[in-house]
């Protein structure tokens, strides 16, 4: 692209340099095609990219890339109600994928991840009520078994 600009400069007035940061919709399209670790690296690049990466449709694409047929619209509303695709990815899908690497990602794993995600949402409804004596920063989570010990957030 830069070379083209150089050639064109001879005939035309200066063309401004292309910056991806000015075209966030293009950035979203690019990020949607990344895999998990690359997407997380991209989200750590700068604050703008971090904000763009918060777009849930990117994570939806990541979650369902290998599942066919593509899940339907009711699924999107249910997942959004339960907390969004990004959280689904981090809490359920990524640990499940990590621990079941040999299994082809299919509808069954998706169903299991969704069930676990739903239980997690339900428990968060209880955060105030249950662990009154525990420190408030420790919500109950049945997904604790999916997390490695240091990473408890």
């Amino acid at each position, binding site marked *: 692209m830069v070379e083209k600009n150089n050639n064109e400069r001879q005939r035309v007035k200066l063309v401004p340099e292309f910056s991806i*940061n000015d075209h966030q919709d293009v950035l979203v399209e690019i990020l949607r095609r990344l895999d*998990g*670790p690359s997407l*997380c*690296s991209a*989200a*750590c690049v*700068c*604050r*703008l990219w*971090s*904000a763009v990466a*918060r777009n849930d449709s990117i994570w939806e694409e990541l979650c369902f890339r290998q599942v066919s047929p593509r899940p339907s619209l*009711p*699924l999107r*509303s*249910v997942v959004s*109600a*339960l907390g969004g695709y*990004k959280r689904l990815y*981090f809490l359920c899908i*990524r*640990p*499940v994928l990590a*621990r*079941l690497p040999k*299994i082809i990602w299919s509808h*069954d*794993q998706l*169903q*299991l991840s*969704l*069930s*676990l995600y*739903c*239980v997690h*949402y*339900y*428990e968060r*409804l*209880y955060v105030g*009520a*249950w662990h009154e004596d*525990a420190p408030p920063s420790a919500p*109950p*989570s*049945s997904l*604790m*078994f*999916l997390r*490695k*010990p*240091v*990473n408890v*957030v």
Partner: protein
Amino acid sequence: MKRDLHQFQGPPDTRFPNHETANTGSSSKDKMMKVKEEEDGGNMDELLAVLGYKVRSSEMAEVALKLEQLETMMGNVQEDGLSNLATDTVHYNPSELYSWLDNMLTEFNPPPPEINNSFLAGAGGSDYDLKAIPGNAIYARSNQFAIDSSSSSNQAGTTVTTTTTESTRSMVLVDSQENGVRLVHALMACAEAIQNNDLSIAEALVKQIGFLAVSQAGAMRKVATYFAEALARRIYRLSPPQTQIDHSLSDTLQMHFYETCPYLKFAHFTANQAILEAFEGKKRVHVIDFSMNQGLQWPALMQALALREGGPPVFRLTGIGPPAADNSDHLHEVGCKLAQLAEAIHVEFEYRGFVANSLADLDASMLELRPSEIEAVAVNSVFELHKLLGRTGGIEKVLGVVKQIKPVIFTVVEQESNHNGPVFLDRFTESLHYYSTLFDSLEGVPSSQDKVMSEVYLGKQICNLVACEGPDRVERHETLSQWANRFGTSGFAPAHLGSNAFKQASMLLALFNGGEGYSVEENNGCLMLGWHTRPLITTSAWKLLAAH
């Protein structure tokens, strides 16, 4: 490479991508940004985790400081100081930046001996004294042990210290395997003495069990401690520490048990799968749950119903539970939470909670059943039916009520072991094997407060099993074949759990520690979850025989 530490704390603001820290005047905006910052902090952690770094973004500022400290120290130290590090120390995973740096720094500057270890050391001292410990003190010790592990695991990054202290303990022990065999023999002999009413012999044996138990480590120690306490209570005729009325405590304990190990999750997921399949094509469904507790089983079912082909049915739930100790309407609270969830996922939801001291107090007329053409009913019971076996006629009455309900499916989850034989010694032997296996399976779980609470949960069951008699003894577990007999004579036929349930269960178990040790078996259409070769809990489904 000195970074501006504030960069990690300021929230990203897309309008000013180069803005360092936003110091605006208004307090509400600060509060909003603080909330956003906490959320971003959480996201940052996850992003770092994917990249392989186990560090919290809130700790990044301290990590940077420590890196600088380490750098200066390494510059100042002489050669032999560094070579010490190479040979004598245990190195931790460098991707856990925070604890690794901590460790490196303490190697250079060894801190004064930690005071909290003296508590453990004091307890350790009494280990090696080997004096006889009377019955009650065993219980006090197991409490202490419970407090030990929970306090040490609460400190950040000190899970390592608990394992090192435990490993130093086992290095000093000798002949622990021989002691293990003696321990089991002592337990059996004590139970036999109680069976023969030789209470003085039993008393002497219990004391011996006490100090044999502390010579063990891990699961055997815990199991032996709980059984010894229960035996002591039986010998001295002491009532159990908490009566069965304290339901809120047992709810909490069951919650911890749910989080720590897969048994309850297995139970819920397999029962839900059976119910889901039975409800196929029905427009209005009704579930009657005999084991409401915190309602943990139902979110997953509601989510599956919400996403099924043809859209969700109208979902009605009737929850039955014992009265709460403080008279609070806890079933009502559970219903509210479930309603909140149902609204979020767009499932029409109706709820009714019933308080009953025992399931046998129920009557079908109370349940407001609607005609079966309109509404399909399922009945669910997880670890509740065995409690009825203590009352004469209890289980028959309940099965009669279930038949009156005419459910399309009746899912039952029970422990797979016979703890209801007429002879005390047989019950004792069976339960010793059963709970040893159960505690063994918990050993793979990293130590945490959850794990301790799960063990207390199981300990309560042990106590009830061994120390109580008559109507007080509610933990009357029976095997699948015994239940199958009972259901068969009452007019139920088995409904086979499909391969979907089996697949889901296998996947769920594979998530727990790689699934090592756990096994799912199919037995006459019922699914059994076991540890190695020993089945521990069974999910079965039943439907009414047409003739009845």
